[in-house]
């Protein structure tokens, strides 16, 4: 089991390094950093001197090492557009995105998993059929369209909920939270539903198909042949076996919520990292793009590690080695 964990740790570090490499290549070689930093009237000598001072003439490996070292400490240089340290910008925006993502993830799982289980167990009920139809509609609605529709109905026509922004926030140290104010919570409703809907339907369909697979296996048949109660078969035998593949993919999906937040933040003008990133793409603000990339990779790696730990807990085949011939 420890070899398994150790291997995953090593893989995670490799992933981070690869992403850092890509981010660094972006940083260094896309466009000219010097051009982006100085004005038009800076003389040639000043540019050359700047290049030397910033260490842009050193070898690739040295520059990469420097970049990686800085990145590990959270230093991503200066934004071309905003002319402020990237780390400051990110620190400002991170809480907004994280709060939105976590609430959405929770929604998606809390509704998606039970719905998936229900539609698998009661395949032929009309409720299951309607869930399935709704889910098809759910994955056909692009996230931004859901946002627009919600804004139209609840913001413009009914005027129940605010249509943009985060509402009032409370500062706790460097973290700003919208969960402690009424307007903050109200502002959270539509964006989180928008973000959660797509993931919710995906999770529901996934859980359903995995569970149907498991319900067809021999050991479920054998459990039924032993006269075990239907409830036991469904929830103790089938559900537990479904969880193993579901955990991986749910983990991946949740990771992608953080990235999908980009869209939601655009529609609702939510002051998070996603909005920052979109603006950076439009303005070719490389430092922000690179930083975002590394940050997202970090989140994914952490989520994957957690998923792997959960795996070990759930599946005994990973904890104990199998027997040879006895």
């Amino acid at each position, binding site marked *: 089991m420890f070899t398994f964990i150790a291997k995953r740790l090593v893989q995670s570090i490799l992933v981070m390094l690869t992403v850092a490499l890509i981010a660094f290549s972006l940083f260094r070689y896309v466009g000219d950093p010097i051009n982006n930093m100085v004005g038009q009237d800076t003389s040639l000598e000043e540019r050359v001197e700047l290049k030397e001072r910033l260490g842009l003439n050193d070898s690739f490996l040295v520059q990469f090492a420097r970049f990686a070292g800085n990145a590990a400490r959270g230093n991503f240089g200066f934004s071309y557009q905003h002319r402020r340290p990237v780390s400051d910008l990110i620190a400002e925006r991170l809480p907004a995105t994280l709060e939105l993502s976590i609430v959405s993830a929770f929604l998606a799982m809390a509704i998606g998993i039970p719905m998936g289980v229900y539609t698998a167990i009661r395949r032929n009920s009309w409720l299951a059929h309607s869930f399935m139809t709704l889910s098809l*509609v759910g994955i056909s609605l*692009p996230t*931004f369209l859901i946002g627009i529709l919600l804004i139209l109905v609840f913001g413009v026509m009914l005027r129940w909920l605010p249509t943009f922004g985060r509402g009032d926030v409370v500062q706790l140290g460097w973290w700003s939270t919208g969960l402690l104010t009424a307007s903050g919570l109200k502002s959270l409703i539509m964006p989180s539903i928008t973000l959660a809907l797509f993931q919710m339907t995906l999770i529901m369909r996934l859980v359903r198909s995995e569970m149907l697979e498991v319900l*067809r296996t021999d050991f479920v048949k054998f459990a039924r042949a032993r006269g075990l109660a239907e409830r036991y078969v469904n929830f103790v035998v089938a559900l537990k076996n479904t969880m193993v593949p579901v955990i991986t993919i749910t983990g991946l999906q949740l990771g992608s919520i953080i990235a999908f937040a980009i869209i939601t933040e655009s529609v609702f003008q939510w002051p998070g990292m996603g909005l920052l990133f979109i603006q950076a793409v439009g303005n070719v603000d490389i430092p922000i793009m690179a930083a975002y990339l590394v940050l997202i*990779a970090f989140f994914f790696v952490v989520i994957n590690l957690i998923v792997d730990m959960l795996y070990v807990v759930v599946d005994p085949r990973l904890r104990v080695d199998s027997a040879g011939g006895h």
Partner: protein
Amino acid sequence: MSDTTAQNTRKGWLARAADSDLWYSFVRSPVTIASTIVTLLFFVSAIFANWIAPHNPFDLASISIMDASLPPAWMVGGDPRFWLGTDDQGRDILSTIIYGARISLFVGFAAVIFSMILGISLGLVSGYVGGRLDAFIMRVADIQLSFPAILIALLIDGVARGVLPREMHQEMVFYVLIFAIGISGWVQYARTVRGSTLVEKNKEYVQAARVIGIGPFIILWRHILPNVMGPVLVIATIHLAIAVITEATLSFLGVGVPPTTPSLGTLIRIGNDYLFSGEWWITIFPGIALVLLVLAINLLGDWLRDALNPRLR
């Protein structure tokens, strides 16, 4: 049984298709028939847009600012010339939808085909050759799978913007877009094809071919590829839906197709600004069109998956 099959072989593939289980389940499902019709409608109008659309929204001479912001024909103030109303520039919404759908479908299709070719090739090679190459390709696939398509597409787009000079970027925008969406989708194909290849590789007809002495390329092309294509079709339909959504999202965010050739996503973005002033039709109708298109494709894909799955019967 031998009699009917003998007849079947003589009739040829068309009759065989008509007798197949696939057609049977197709004809039995009204939803599937409806979604196929809708999809076909979109395709046809996309191909024949020039003849079908009542107006040409890109012909600057034919639009007039006097016709701007007219509501749909059945509402007060509407004009029977413009069934679904006009936008802020006087362009007919219905026509812009038809042309826009064409762009959306074009990009979506091209991206899917690019993805397919890349993914299938990598999957075949990975599964058949195995060893280090396989491990490497799968590792890359795993890493890429952690990043959602949107992000990858955005990144590639952003990089292209930075690397290519402005004019060149304008010209190449479609290629960049197709590349970006395509690159973000190959993993699904590769994984499925690799899995099927691993299974087929060990089947005895492949071994028989090797015993005859046939080399790996011909084995992959003639023996393995035809037998792994089944699940690929299902993935392709689902992927087409995702590609269309991705393109729409990118265009909505402003980093997709250029504004001179607006797709449905661009139209929605343009109309978004007018939502608050009450001119809802500028954004809602393109939105409905997009949802209809994607829904139809998804329904088709769903049916295809169930119909091709031998265990569900």
